[in-house]
């Protein structure tokens, strides 16, 4: 089965609109235990996603229904006919308000430049071999995933693009040990390339964190002390702001933010400015158009804590009557009013490792178990572990501060440290 065969069938199908995407993913995978190869893998996966749209009417009005399916390259022509026929019926069962598909012709967005899987893999493997390890701290294990993803999209309005892009995942675990006691720390990240020096430094910093965890004391009971975040968990914080500007969240009544109205009644700290950008160096999400064929334009979603533009799929953007919208992949959060040094004054708890730090994009609840923190109190620094931090972004957004300096975690360029006030810290010390 081929892209053209499906497209030809869609062209004559009695639907009101369609979208067809062919995705081919080729991947190299290497799994290491203590620098010894556990397993190597190759993947080559092709699939087709078809969306069929059909209009219906009843006494309450007109609707546009969408039904989707994944078609496999091993499907027979009869299989394809059956799926498309089923989708055509299923679309009539779905009664959503009418919207339209993207219809602006795309130019110069067909780019085929396959990633060199072998060379990308080589960079990751060589980088791991260059990490400075000692008898007391080393890499336990790591997994390298290097992919080249090729997409060919077309819709019934003639919008078409072909593109491919690299997508890498690097997961690693480090150990530190002392006097028969061993601890570990876990990290995973997405990358558009392998910047060897930066990644090597990140691993070595993590090794140092692990060594510090060996001598950590139980987190004491703490009240009214700000929390400083300085690692990739900050992305969870800023993703809350991004998702609240998602048109789908607005339509689904999850986001109650409104354009040109501050997100808080009274700000006491820094106000978030969040810009969506098409291109961010080294991101694995650098696309000219989104998955539905809409041009991605640089634009502010939030400026000084005031919503400027919701974003999202064509469907939800139409519902909110947003012009020139698209999905958003890369974001930049503008730096705050103070420097890192200024924010690290006075008493605070810097948490660099959680079991799993979560910020509910819907309700804003913050939760995470503390695996490693640095308690700065009364002029002394104590390394702590255990206990948890909890709170809610609705309160935190009013007072939070963030640094002038910025750092980048794949598709999020954000302040290098974020300081939260009013969160609850549950200590474990007696």
């Amino acid at each position, binding site marked *: 089965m081929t892209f053209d065969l499906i497209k030809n069938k869609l062209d004559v199908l009695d639907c009101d609109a369609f979208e067809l995407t062919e995705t081919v993913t080729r991947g190299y995978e*290497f799994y290491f235990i203590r620098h010894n190869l556990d397993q190597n893998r190759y993947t080559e996966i092709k699939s087709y996603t078809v969306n069929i749209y059909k209009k219906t009417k009843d006494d309450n009005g007109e609707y546009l229904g969408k039904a989707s399916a994944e078609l496999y390259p091993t499907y027979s022509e009869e299989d394809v006919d059956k799926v498309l026929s089923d989708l055509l019926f299923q679309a009539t069962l779905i009664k959503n308000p009418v919207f339209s598909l993207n219809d602006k012709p795309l130019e110069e967005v067909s780019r085929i430049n396959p990633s060199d899987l072998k060379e990308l893999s080589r960079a990751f493997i060589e980088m791991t071999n260059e990490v400075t390890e000692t008898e007391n701290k080393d890499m336990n294990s790591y997994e390298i995933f290097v992919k080249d993803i090729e997409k060919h999209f077309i819709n019934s309005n003639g919008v078409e693009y072909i593109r491919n892009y690299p997508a890498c995942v690097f997961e690693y675990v480090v150990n530190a040990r002392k006097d028969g006691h061993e601890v570990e720390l876990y990290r995973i990240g997405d990358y558009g390339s392998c910047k060897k020096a930066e990644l090597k430094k990140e691993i070595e910093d993590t090794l140092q964190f692990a060594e510090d965890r060996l001598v950590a004391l139980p987190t004491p009971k703490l009240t009214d002390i700000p929390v400083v975040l300085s690692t990739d968990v900050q992305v969870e914080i800023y993703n809350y702001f991004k998702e609240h500007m998602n048109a789908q969240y607005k339509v*689904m009544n999850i986001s109650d933010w409104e354009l040109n109205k501050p997100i808080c009644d009274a700000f006491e700290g820094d106000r978030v400015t969040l810009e969506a950008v098409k291109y961010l160096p080294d991101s694995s999400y650098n696309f000219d158009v989104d998955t539905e064929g809409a041009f991605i334009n640089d634009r502010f979603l939030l400026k000084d804590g005031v919503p400027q533009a919701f974003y999202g799929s064509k469907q939800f953007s139409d519902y909110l009557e947003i012009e020139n919208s698209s999905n958003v992949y890369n974001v930049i959060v503008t730096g705050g009013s103070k420097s890192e040094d200024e924010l690290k004054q006075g008493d605070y708890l810097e948490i660099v490792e959680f079991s799993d730090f979560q910020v509910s994009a819907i309700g804003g609840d913050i*939760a995470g178990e503390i695996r490693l923190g640095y308690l700065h109190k009364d002029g002394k620094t104590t390394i702590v572990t255990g206990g948890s931090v909890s709170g809610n972004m609705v309160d935190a957004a009013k007072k939070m501060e963030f640094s002038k300096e910025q750092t980048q975690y794949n598709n999020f360029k954000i302040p290098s440290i974020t300081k939260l006030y009013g969160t609850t810290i549950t200590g474990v010390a007696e």
Partner: protein
Amino acid sequence: MKATFSTYLDSLIPSLKDLLAELSKSFDYVSILSTDSPGFRVSISNNQKAVAGKNMTTERGTVIRVYKDKLYSEVALSEIDVNNVKGEAERIKSILDNQFDLLKETSSKVYETEILKDEPLTLFKEKETEELPEAADLEALTEKFDILCKEGMKTIPGALNVIVTGISTHISKVFLSKNRDLRQSYVYTEGSIAAYARNEAGETKIYHEGVSGCGGPEIFEGLSDVVKKAGKVVSDLLSSEHITPGEYEIITSPEVTGLIAHEAFGHGVEMDMFVKERALGAQYINKRVGSDLVTMHEGALTDESVTAYVFDDEGVLAGDTIEIEKGILKTGICDSLSALRLNTNPTGNGKRESFSHKVYTRMTNTTFDSGKDTLEDMIASVKKGYLLEGMQSGMEDPKHWGIQCIISRGHEIIDGALTGKVVSPVVMTGYVPDLLGNISMASKDREVFGNGACGKGHKEWVKVADGGPYLKTIARLG
């Protein structure tokens, strides 16, 4: 009726056997897993509806595992040219040679592993279901979900949206090696009600509960009961307060009990973590890790849930492993390659996210055994504490036996009675042996829940189920 085995796989198997024979000329061990699993996902909310012929477990493809020079390698392909099996074998060898070259160029050493035993076995199993996802009446289903959604919007206080979701997949898999020909087909289904509601203070609360099991879309019938009790739960959430952090007596509902089973000792005894020396459990075999009331099972045979397969993704028959017996840690669970490295037997827990993903040791059904107490007696025994209900998420920490569970709500208990006060959300943390060691009561009843998905670290999502009885213990809440 039977969940009939895929006709596509039936037609593919002869070519797969030819490919296996061809690759066996160049490798010391070859196995092939091929899947064909159609299904659907229907989602109906107050203002958005969707139907799709795909969900997280639908797939079709083949993964080939080969072994040579003490190293296992895999190639996962969505299509194999059945008319040119020799050519496909050459292509697979060429792809792997390219990787072997890179490994040589980077001076990478191999974690040497022995060859799998490949003991002879033939099996064909089609499990029972009342209905197949492929034959589901989606028109009736969308209408039913629409009614449930409207009922939820009407009865749930402060409802911003109610989302009714149904997922059903008909899984067919064949595992082939030189001495094995295993084929299975079964259906699993899960449905859920999610509600978002906001109180006057502007706090948004989330409710999520569902039904699931090894069976077809008939399982969605249970959603009617779920939506009926959503109103009371959301009302509690909207009027909830923040908990005062501290250590409390707690009673865990079966759902929270399941979360503890999963996070505390489920991940902690996945023996691929033993290979990496990432799990403290390896040092505690035959040692006490819980009170006498703690007996924990793990295995696809333990419950007819969403993960009740007949054989795992490495062609090992499903099991029912007793991990903890009366507080003593007996054994872990193990995939085939980890078993070779640890000189033990695999337990039927080698699972892949999909055919294109690597096998890891993964959980299936993880459950605590029941006890002899009643919930009423358990509440009456609490001086000051909480009855915890509704799971949101959890995180494992096998190396240090920490536990993190985010729980929807806690009902305050003072002097043996529920006060009516509710706290939400609740972050439960602690040291696993303390948590299990303090279990002092367990109820007679037991429930298993299969609406969640489990990751290994932060990836490799697979279906799992867990549960148990009400348990009374002590934990730190914040």
